């Protein structure tokens, strides 16, 4: 009988859960709080989990802290939407602004493995030009890393995550073959394809971080995807290549420690203006871990929250904030959709939701707004679908139940759209307090004119494709967002950025940020692959800096 993952930490006593075997454990090295570990990483998701593995494999001593629970997918995950809300960050937060962001399962996970435990596994590369959005395309901000370097690391990330993708990719420079073949399309995917062909644009099988064949690698023995369709509610199969199944096991094998149910509330600095460790709450008490380096990887809300909350006499505006940009330039991505009903059944609940995708409008610049978007197939489970009916169409009562009867005939496509950075969109500290006694994040957001123009264009194009396949009773879902980024932006000038190209903060040389917060722009693709890729590059840079004695 498995313990309750929330009742008490599981990673302790020299062992951590073996997520691949029921009731089994893997040995875990533990450090004392008085040990000055090389790296204390806050957050074990796409950024922190990846970096923990790579740094541990380089021989550094690493502790990965996560406020979330250490789930055992085989035993803790139910096939149930409501139960699985436990994967999300459900702590207190305040949202405001003209377009307040709805937090939770769309953008905020709380678990060892972070949001990758619940994400839809869509693994896309940034278009090359986006790394120089300002200089090549005239908007946003430039990344301080070249596209060639990022595309080199994308290949490494795709291999190590073991992405299942198409043999040829219709857009962008040639990329190496994905390690595993693309999945079989379900009807939702096939209908996206038909819609795209009907309006004359290309489509492809989505590169997904879930196995289309049994896993061959040494770090896990996972079955291939069983096409359950509960991807966004936790993969019980472990076919999903999340940080929990890919990076954390590697980190543990290389001697890293993971501390679950450990909420870092404050980063401590010493008299010399360097980070000295983290204060964290675990098992009912506040504790302190000494560290040579602190990496903040809590994603775009919790990272700035922690940096701001760690303000002290020397850094009254929060850590790494001489630019004043910590928390600012928050970006989300537009996530509008177009839905319709088919005469023939679709039964989109079978298989991962986004098996097919079109990135046409990421690469076609024939538009009168900046930025790009993609759209992908959908397969909402009942509660998700009911939420669209209530949220988009305001349905309730008999009309809601009647509309829901068409569940098995519905079709839809949903976008991931670029939103532009705006300093007014930001994360600050509210005056509410959470269960740890910490000030909660206030998330302020407003869509800009360019964002709205892009959304309008996308809704129209998605609508054309849904209409072209003969769907009836079509409607747009015009108010939704998903992934986040930007609140600790990366740059080459300390006045206009928080961290440099190596994810090292300008102000405090041993304080790093390695997650989606560092994105100067968010692009029109899901961010997870790019975050893991940044971590791969950062690990390499840390190795070089360490060898050169520059750490």
């Amino acid at each position, binding site marked *: 009988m498995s313990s309750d993952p929330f009742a008490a930490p599981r990673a302790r006593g020299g062992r951590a859960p073996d997520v691949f075997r029921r009731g089994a454990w893997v040995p875990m090295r533990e450090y004392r709080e008085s040990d000055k570990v090389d790296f204390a990483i806050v957050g074990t998701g796409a950024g922190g989990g990846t970096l923990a593995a790579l740094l541990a494999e380089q021989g550094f001593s690493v502790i990965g802290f996560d406020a979330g629970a250490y789930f055992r997918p085989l035993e803790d995950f139910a096939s149930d939407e409501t139960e699985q809300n436990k994967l999300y960050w459900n702590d207190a937060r305040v949202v405001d602004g003209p377009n307040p962001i709805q937090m939770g399962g769309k953008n905020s996970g709380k678990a060892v493995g972070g949001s990758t435990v619940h994400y839809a596994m869509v693994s896309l590369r940034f278009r090359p030009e986006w790394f120089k959005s300002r200089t090549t395309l005239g908007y946003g901000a430039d990344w301080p890393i070249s596209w060639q370097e990022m595309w080199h690391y994308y290949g490494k990330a795709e291999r190590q995550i073991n992405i299942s993708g198409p043999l040829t990719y219709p857009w962008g420079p040639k990329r190496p073959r994905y390690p595993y073949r693309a999945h079989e399309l379900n009807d939702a995917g096939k209908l996206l394809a038909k819609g795209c062909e009907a309006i004359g644009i290309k489509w492809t099988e989505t590169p997904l971080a879930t196995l289309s064949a049994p896993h061959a690698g040494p770090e896990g023995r996972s079955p291939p995807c069983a096409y359950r369709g509960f991807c966004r509610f936790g993969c019980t199969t472990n076919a999903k290549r999340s940080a929990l199944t890919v990076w954390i096991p590697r980190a543990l094998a290389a001697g890293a420690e993971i501390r679950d149910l450990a909420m870092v509330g404050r980063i401590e600095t010493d008299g010399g203006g360097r980070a000295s460790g983290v204060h964290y709450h675990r098992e009912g008490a506040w504790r302190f871990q000494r560290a040579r380096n602190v990496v903040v990887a809590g994603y775009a809300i919790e990272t700035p929250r922690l940096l701001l909350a760690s303000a002290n006499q020397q850094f009254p505006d929060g850590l790494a904030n001489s630019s004043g940009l910590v928390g600012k330039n928050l970006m989300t991505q537009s996530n509008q959709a177009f839905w319709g009903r088919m005469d023939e059944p679709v*039964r989109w*609940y*079978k298989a991962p939701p986004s098996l097919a995708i079109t990135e046409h409008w990421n690469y076609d610049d024939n538009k009168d707004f900046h930025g790009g978007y993609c759209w992908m197939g959908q397969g909402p489970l009942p509660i998700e679908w009911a939420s669209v*009916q209530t949220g988009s169409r305001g349905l309730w*009562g008999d009309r809601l139940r009647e509309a829901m009867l068409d569940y098995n005939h519905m079709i839809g496509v949903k976008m991931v759209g670029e939103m532009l950075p705006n300093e007014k969109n930001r994360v600050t500290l509210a005056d509410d307090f959470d269960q740890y006694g910490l000030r909660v994040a206030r998330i302020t957001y407003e869509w800009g004119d360019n964002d709205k123009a892009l959304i309008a264009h996308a809704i129209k194009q998605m609508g054309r494709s849904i209409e072209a396949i003969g769907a009836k009773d079509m409607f747009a879902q015009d108010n939704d967002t998903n992934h986040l980024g930007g609140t600790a932006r990366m740059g080459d000038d300390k006045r206009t950025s928080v961290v440099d190209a190596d994810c090292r903060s300008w102000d405090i040389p041993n304080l790093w940020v390695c997650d989606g917060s560092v994105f100067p722009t968010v692009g029109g693709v899901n961010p997870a692959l790019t975050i893991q890729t940044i971590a791969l590059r950062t690990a390499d840079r840390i190795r070089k800096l360490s060898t050169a004695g520059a750490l």
Partner: protein
Amino acid sequence: MTEAPRYPGYDVLEKRNTPSWDAVTRRVIDERLATPDKPRFLTEEEWDVADALCRRIVPQHGEADAVSLVGLLDAKLLGDHGAGFREADMPYMREAWRKALSALDGEARAQNNGRGFAELSDKEQDALLSAMQQGRISGERWAGVDAKSFFERRILVDVPPLYYSHPKAWNEIGFGGPASPRGYVRLDGNRLDPWEAIEASPGQEVKAERENRRVV
């Protein structure tokens, strides 16, 4: 709802002991089905108002297997199982519900000669809820929780998922239900795995029911 069932005879619970359900799912659904039908978070008065509200948001007119949505709502509030965040002009979930239930009942009494929300007819209740949704309800009573925001951000967010978290709703819409370890082999909409719901074409309800009773 007067429509003929689309998936007559289909019951996801029949798959409870098949590979479509695992132990943790059985435990979770059992718990949900055993949710006490009595207030543990809400007061008796709040419960009555919430019950009437839930019955309008997801009506189950005299259905024999009607789900007690107010019981599930009460359990959700007791466990504080919400998404956690609040809009800047709204309280957190629990406080919002308490305040709004009180305001809704007061609003009903003010507009209907002292009859509380639970005492109104279906039509009267619907009218009041529609007015909330359309932003036509405001005033002193709603100072702590805006009526329209509460309708959109709490009622529509919290109540319908209660129904659609229940096997009864899954049967109604022909959802495959829990799926672990057994997922799906045939991924097309018109190619069914033997453990999926058969949709009744008009006039074929008896045949579909017979087939659905064999679904496992």
